[in-house]
């Protein structure tokens, strides 16, 4: 165990000290921050006026949707079918439909539009609706409490009890009046992003493992090392060491990206009359931590600017679950593939020879990315399910699905099978690796690899 730790240490330190690692670590967050900031910036800069028709069957939201700089609301009184039929001719950007509910307060709505719904529009509507609903609940709760002065209820409890999340579906209306689901969901962006990130990380760090093995083989140091440690220890030490480099890079990216995004958005909105997203967030937190007995803040935030709304949308994502599952699928997915990469490195004499073996291994990964469009359209369908269970496609596909909400048992099943898959590929790869690293100048075929797998000991 001490020796494998030494190997991990070497693999980690030599890579982290490399100039390319440092450059990537700085460049990555800048690029990622840019991909977050630029759309937000552009969204806030569009002065195009969007009109939204509101069809509120409940009547609760009458007059509650106030016009903003970029969004105009007008109310319809027709029934929904007429509204939909007329929508194409109306020139409205979107049609908001809040269906009538019998007993409970309405907490879902549908936005119809011809094209993708502007994310600002959607989050604005969501905010207005949830604030209105929360205010109503709060009033009701306060009335309740007034009749019952003996029981001290904490502010936290009240706030928790009134917390409302509004579910908004977006549907496209085609020229023919047909509906289809619209994909501007944040979860879609996040899912794709996480999936592609896993794909990218597996490839990048997997090939680092492969190159490391080839380096040891061509420099012939491998024979000295395997006279001190078992080939399996060397292989695992390398895989773990490189994996830790990947994790380090990822963590640094997340932290640095967060810092850059926060800093830039703060400067972007400073000087404007409205509060910045962070300030607002802080305020909300203050509300939550206010001690008992103080006056309950009843005034919810009024229409903030668009930037705030986008940030709110981002904050509405369950990041602990996202990051937690991302880390799991990244780590175990990497381990599973890295074993293959190590075996390839061990089998060949130079990087030029790796192509024929790389191809079959990369197929499941590339397939995952190709199918991602399809998965997003039907994240709970059978294809999505089976691909997220199959260990070679699970890391990417499951990450794409998770932002849409996946039942826990499916996630755990996928994780368990992925771990089994990792053990299986490592066992297989170790056999190829062990024989390959001592074999020079031989043209390796699949038949040869099969022989190596069957060698005893």
């Amino acid at each position, binding site marked *: 165990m001490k*020796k494998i730790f*030494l*190997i991990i240490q*070497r693999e980690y330190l*030599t890579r982290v000290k490399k100039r390319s690692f440092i450059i990537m670590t700085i460049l990555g967050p800048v690029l990622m921050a840019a991909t977050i900031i630029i759309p937000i910036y552009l969204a806030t800069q569009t002065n195009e006026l969007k009109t939204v028709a509101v069809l509120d069957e409940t009547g609760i939201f009458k007059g509650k949707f106030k016009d903003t700089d970029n969004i105009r609301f007008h109310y319809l009184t027709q029934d929904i079918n007429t509204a939909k039929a007329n929508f194409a001719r109306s020139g409205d950007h979107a049609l908001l439909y809040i269906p009538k509910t019998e007993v409970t307060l309405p907490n879902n709505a549908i936005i119809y539009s011809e094209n993708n719904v502007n994310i600002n529009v959607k989050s604005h509507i969501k905010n207005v609706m949830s604030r209105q609903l929360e205010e109503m609940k709060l009033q009701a709760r306060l009335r309740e409490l007034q009749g019952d002065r003996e029981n001290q209820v904490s502010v936290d409890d009240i706030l928790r009890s009134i917390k409302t999340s509004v579910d908004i579906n977006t549907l496209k209306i085609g020229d023919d009046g047909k509906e289809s689901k619209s994909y501007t969901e944040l979860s879609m962006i996040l899912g794709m992003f996480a999936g592609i990130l896993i794909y990218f990380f597996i490839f990048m760090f997997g090939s680092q493992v492969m190159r490391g093995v080839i*380096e*040891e083989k*061509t*420099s*012939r*140091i491998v*024979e*000295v*090392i*395997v*006279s*001190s*440690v*078992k*080939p399996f220890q060397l292989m695992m030490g390398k895989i773990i060491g490189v994996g830790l480099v990947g994790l380090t890079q990822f963590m640094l990216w997340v932290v640095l990206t967060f810092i850059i995004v926060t800093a830039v958005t703060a400067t972007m909105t400073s000087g404007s009359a409205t509060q910045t997203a962070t300030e607002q967030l802080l305020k909300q937190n203050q509300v939550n931590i206010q001690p008992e007995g103080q006056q309950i803040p009843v005034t919810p935030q009024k229409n903030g600017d668009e930037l705030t709304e986008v940030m709110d949308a981002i904050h509405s994502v369950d990041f602990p679950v996202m990051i937690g599952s991302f880390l799991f699928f990244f780590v175990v997915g990497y381990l599973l593939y890295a074993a293959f990469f190590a075996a390839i490195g061990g089998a060949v004499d130079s990087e030029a020879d790796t192509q024929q073996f790389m191809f079959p291994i990369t197929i499941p990964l590339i397939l995952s990315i190709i199918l991602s469009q399809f998965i997003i359209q039907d994240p709970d369908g059978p294809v999505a399910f089976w691909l997220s269970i199959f260990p070679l496609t699970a890391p990417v596909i499951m990450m794409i699905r998770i932002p849409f909400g996946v039942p826990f048992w499916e996630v755990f099943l996928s994780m368990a099978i992925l771990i089994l898959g990792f053990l299986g590929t490592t066992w297989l790869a170790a056999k190829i690796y062990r024989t390959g690293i*001592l074999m*020079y100048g031989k043209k390796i075929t699949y038949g040869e690899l099969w*022989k190596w797998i069957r060698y*005893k*000991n």
Partner: protein
Amino acid sequence: MILFAADNVTKQYSGHKALDKVSVAVPEGKIFGLLGPNGAGKTTLIRIINQIIAPDEGALMFNGRKLEPGDISAIGYLPEERGLYKKMTVGEQSLYLAQLKGLTHHEALTRLKFWFDKFEIRSWWNRKVEELSKGMQQKVQFLITIIHEPRLLIFDEPFSGFDPINASLLKDEILAQKEKGATVIFSTHNMASVEELCDDIALINKSKVVLDGSVREIKKKYKTNTYIVSFNSFDKPLESILPPAFQVLSEFSDADHRHATLKLPIDATSNDMIRLLLPHVTIYSVNERIPNMNDIFIQVVSNREVSEN
């Protein structure tokens, strides 16, 4: 006492046997030569001793008991194909490899400093391996091989790539290791160095041990009862004064003397030869021609090939 022994070791690769019932015994404190033509199976045997690969059949003994995984820290191995991490500094690399052999960081550092001073290579410590010449790299690698003071040292072609000065430095160091009590297995094609260094040898050809024993015994066994005689000029052919059982293998003259190589019948001694020659010539010197390892090597290996064909 035997430090390492292989008993009937067989290793089969798909298609061919790399080792076929090979048995060797390496006495403690001696230098043991592992000889054989290319592809004979030497490297396979060395890898088996290092537990890099496992034999299909046969037993391996170390220090009187079965060879165990923990024994690798008692073995130092310098492979024929040598190499180091090119991008790592000499110091870091030496520390890493020494620790892999089981030394603590502190022990490794102290010993490395000692050896770097002894070899006068202290200034290389922070240089990357790729900046060193091949000979310098070899020196570093040799040093790493002995740093954990192993009981058994295995050198596979240690002199290849060394200039004569460094080769002699290396040779002295190998002998010094033997003085300190280390046992050395030494694989080479260079027969001159075998004679200089080895106490015992095993000659492997086509996966089998074809000759083994102490160098002195082997040489004795391969003596052909041949003598080189120097004498004064003599106008008659030697054959005319010797019985037909005495073969004259070669003859030549230089400015002072004539020299003849004579092969004696099995039952004859050098005294018989001298007695026969004395009446006719004045003898200046008689030397027995002892076969060198090179001759023996060629004889054994080619005889096998002849008899097999």
